[in-house]
């Protein structure tokens, strides 16, 4: 794999491709030897050897799915690759990296997860739009720009958050002083007077690691993966009173509340 100028590009064949490692920053190579991997639909770009891709609903995979796939709502986005050979994974020219979990847990934005070994088990996080991996094994995730690891306590921008490991789920943090009062209400309603766009963060406390990407570009939102409409389930849209009219949440004493107060 020597790369000297003038020699043209590096040419890969099944012998020189790495096994379960990055080919370059944007491409990851998975070696299958009769084993299985879960991968998100459409992230395979090429493979050597013979492989089969089957949807999660495939009857023969039921046992596998029962032990390591616990998110029925994402089932239509995932497939199981099995066979033998080497397979290349990539996602919109984003950086891809693999991570090893050793009897641990990690929560990641659902769109950023590309593939994982069935020795891990996938569950839906209580935070909407995130998935949690529990167990021991390897998984591959994409990020726009390299991933930065941070330690709590930390407040992060919602768009830059890729995931977190071993620490409690985050909470929302609003910049109270900036949003309250007459001026805060005016700013929120009109965008005039300098809405910085950073009034809202995710706050992490406790021990663990927080993964951030170095840009605020997100994966396209998947229409699937919602949670059942039940009272008490976060993100289900079944609110239990307190009618929020969308947009930024209102704080008491804000201008926008005048409408509600006068019953308009």
């Amino acid at each position: 794999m020597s790369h000297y100028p003038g020699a043209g590009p590096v040419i890969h064949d099944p012998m020189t491709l790495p096994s379960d490692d990055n080919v370059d920053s944007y491409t990851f190579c998975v070696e299958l030897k009769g084993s299985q991997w879960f991968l998100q639909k459409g992230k395979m770009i090429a493979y050597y050897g013979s492989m089969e891709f089957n949807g999660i609903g495939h009857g023969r995979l039921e046992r596998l799915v029962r032990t390591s796939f616990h998110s029925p709502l994402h089932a239509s986005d995932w497939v199981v690759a099995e066979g033998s050979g080497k397979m290349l994974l990539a996602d919109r020219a984003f950086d891809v990296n693999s991570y090893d979990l050793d009897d641990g847990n990690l929560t990641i934005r659902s769109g950023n997860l590309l593939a994982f070994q069935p020795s891990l088990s996938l569950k839906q996080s209580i935070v909407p739009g995130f998935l949690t991996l529990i167990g021991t094994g390897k998984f591959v995730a994409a990020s726009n720009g390299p991933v930065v690891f941070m330690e709590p306590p930390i407040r992060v921008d919602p768009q830059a958050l890729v995931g977190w490991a071993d620490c409690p789920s985050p909470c929302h943090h609003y910049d109270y002083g900036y949003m309250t009062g007459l001026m805060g209400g005016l700013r929120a309603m009109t965008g005039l007077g300098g809405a910085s766009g950073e009034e809202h963060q995710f706050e992490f406390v406790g021990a663990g690691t927080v993964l951030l990407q170095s840009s605020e570009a997100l994966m396209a939102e998947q229409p699937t993966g919602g949670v059942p409409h039940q009272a008490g389930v976060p993100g289900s849209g079944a609110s239990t009173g307190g009618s929020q009219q969308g947009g930024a949440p209102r704080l008491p004493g804000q201008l926008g509340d005048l409408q509600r107060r006068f019953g308009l």
Partner: protein
Amino acid sequence: MFRLQGSKVLAVEMTGDAVKAKNGSMVAYDGQMAFKKLSGGGEGIRGMVTRRLTGEQMTVMEVKGHGTCWFADRASEINLVNLQGDKLYVESSNLLATDAGLRTGTTFTGVRGASQGNGLFTTTVEGHGQAAITSDGPAVVLRVSAQYPLTVDPGAYIAHQGNLRQSFQSGVTFRTLMGEGGGEAFQIRFEGDGLVYVQPSERNTIAGDL
């Protein structure tokens, strides 16, 4: 002489010779350069008509002079290809520049092109010299040989060269129609001897939804 400056800018040093490049892709030059638009990809009347008919249109300019000329296209990654008498098959939208000595043409690709949403025809580059192709993210070059056939996602395929046979595989079954497809319903299988260029990103194709 083609040279990459960074990964997204192509520098071409010229001493009186010429290169063909995508129209409007010049970003800078020093020395003396003349730019001339070549109608119909510089393939003569026949090429012009063929390109019009096949929809594989390509606006090309000829750059000629002494000095260095830099080319770039929408900050996409550039990959250099050396041709020694073999043929490069590439989508016209991915072709950035070729040596003037290389012949370009169009060829029928069949159903592969249709699955990529690129139409049924593709561009060929033939001869001895260098070509530069663009990709979304640096391309991975994969060798295909007799004992190692390769299967590629149509959305990630950008080009191939050498003596390759391609066959189209469709995994569309009743399960696909029920929304439980494998997600990789269309694949191109390459057999023979040559190189395949894939990009770490997928264009939106019909296959992407299945």
